[in-house]
């Protein structure tokens, strides 16, 4: 599904060069639920942004579904994002003046789907996140957990192949966080590949795989075994 080969990313200012990512090699298979962990500034968000084609990379290659994204035009990248990738952000990133319905509809509109199909998909997504009754609310009228569920609905309404979640529960209390995690697991079970940045070891543990980044390098890309970690 995702193949990164010797991927590198450098941030340059006038004075210094920072290697955000260095020779990253990664293979993520279809249907995986992987957690991306690491200390602050380690490069995990940069990696997630590159995976989501929100940021470019400087070296190496990134293949999505067997095709390289290198050199794709802005329009092609936007199309790719729109059709194959769903985003869930820590701060939800809903458009506050749009209703829940309008928020979810936005990526579907960008795809050019007709009104009937859009409606069906939005209803399905709202059904899944359990917010059908609140479709006409504005984001500000919902709790944090509900807002994140709306964000999830927006991400999955387009039926993406990959869901990229950047600390999706970072702004939520534990109860809400659990609900969101359960929702993500449910989505994963339905076949969607999920890559999630998290600080929370519990959540990392719940994912099938833990990818750790330190100083821009992938240190570990194994299947997570909690017991082994503890005994060590």
């Amino acid at each position, binding site marked *: 599904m995702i193949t990164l080969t010797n991927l590198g990313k450098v941030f340059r200012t006038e004075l210094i060069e920072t290697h955000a990512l260095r020779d990253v090699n990664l293979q993520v298979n279809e249907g995986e639920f992987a957690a991306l962990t690491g200390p602050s500034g380690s490069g995990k*968000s940069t990696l997630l*942004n590159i995976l*989501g084609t*929100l*940021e470019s990379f400087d070296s190496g290659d990134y293949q999505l579904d067997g095709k390289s994204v290198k050199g794709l035009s*802005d*329009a092609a*990248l*936007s*199309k790719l*994002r*729109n*059709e194959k990738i769903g*985003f869930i*952000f820590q*701060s939800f*990133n*809903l*458009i506050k*003046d*749009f209703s829940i319905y*309008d928020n979810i509809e*936005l*990526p579907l*509109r*960008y*795809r050019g789907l007709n009104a009937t199909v859009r409606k069906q998909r939005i209803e399905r997504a709202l059904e899944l996140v359990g917010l059908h009754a609140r479709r006409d609310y504005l984001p500000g009228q919902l709790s944090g957990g509900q807002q994140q569920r709306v964000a999830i609905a*927006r991400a999955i309404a*387009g039926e993406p192949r990959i869901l990229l979640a*950047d600390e999706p529960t970072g702004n939520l209390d534990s109860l809400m966080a659990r609900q969101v995690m359960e929702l993500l697991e449910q989505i994963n079970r339905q076949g969607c590949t999920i890559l999630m940045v998290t600080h929370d070891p519990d959540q990392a543990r719940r994912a099938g795989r833990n990818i750790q980044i330190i100083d821009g390098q992938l240190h570990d890309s194994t299947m997570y075994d909690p017991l082994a970690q503890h005994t060590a």
Partner: protein
Amino acid sequence: MPLHLLFKSLQRRKVVTTLLLVQLAMTFALLLNSILLAQQTRQQLQQPTGLPLQQTLQVQLKPTTVALRQYPALGDLLTRQLEAIRTVPGVVAVAYSNQGPLLYGGNNGNVHDPDREELSKANGVPLYTVSADFFNVLQLPPLAGELPQNEIAVDGLAKSPVVITQSLANKVFDDKPAVGRQVNRGPVAAVVADFYGQRSAGTVNYNAIQVAPLYGVDWGYSILLRTEHGSTDKVRQALPQVLQQVDSNIEIFYIRTLAEQQQRLYSNEFGLASLLSLLSALMLLVSMISSYSNAYFHTLKHQQEIGIKRALGASKSRIFTELLSENWLTTVLGATAGVGCALVLNQVLAQVISIPSLSWWLPLLTYTVLLLCVTVATWYPATIATRISPATATKAL
């Protein structure tokens, strides 16, 4: 972006949008009426005068002594002046006249058929007293009858024959042949083509001309001369000296081509149209600044939103179009309100000046101009918006 979301986007900036809409509406109204007025002035300046405008020079002058202003010294002065001018290289024909054509007002009176005065009367008809070459200078060949060749006193025993323009002949004689008939000022000798006489008259093409000596020129008089192609400027430069040499007891008020004279006739309209055009340009500039700052600040304030949209799959061109269409919508709304404002302004202006009423295509033209300006003004901020990094914007705050 669908219309209702565009509206929503405008709605959340109520005050700013209202301010923008009001000024767009006013700009539209002014622009529309300025175009209208400019167009009217252009038409006025382009209306056919029936006169060789470029090659004809008009000298307006007056003797500075009482004696020279009266017959017979005046007659002698005129003869000497015309003779002297005829010798200037480039002069084709020259004549005197109590007044020139293309004036606002001047010497005028009524002309009618004495047998049916009430029905045939034309008021305020310019009355010219000229030398025989007047028709040659202004290139007015007779359409009917024969042009008088000798100067016959207007108030002599036998009345001086009258030459009238075509439209005046039609008015007075009801479209019947005029030559040989009598008007109150004398027998009609010939009918010539229409030419522009005086603006204050009801119909500018009514003119009555008599070939006769000038008896007194307390209001000054005109010398009209036609020049060869390309020698107008040279002749104009030579004239003051030539005339001074004939007799220095004169004051020359001006020497103008008839084209300049026509320009002056509409100088007030020209002035107003120029000022309004200038003001319209300023208003457009102000509107452009508004659109620019509106789009710019909007972009600044909504970086996150734009970032989200980019993350959700909106391409740069889509973001660009969305921002433009938001301003287009504002412009169309403002301009539509502007049509109403334009109508009101048109009515208000019509109470003080003569201004044609709105035509259907003018608002369309104005829409286009306004949209074009707004597009140009929004271009740069919209380009900035496309440069917003979705990664940074979705992370921010």
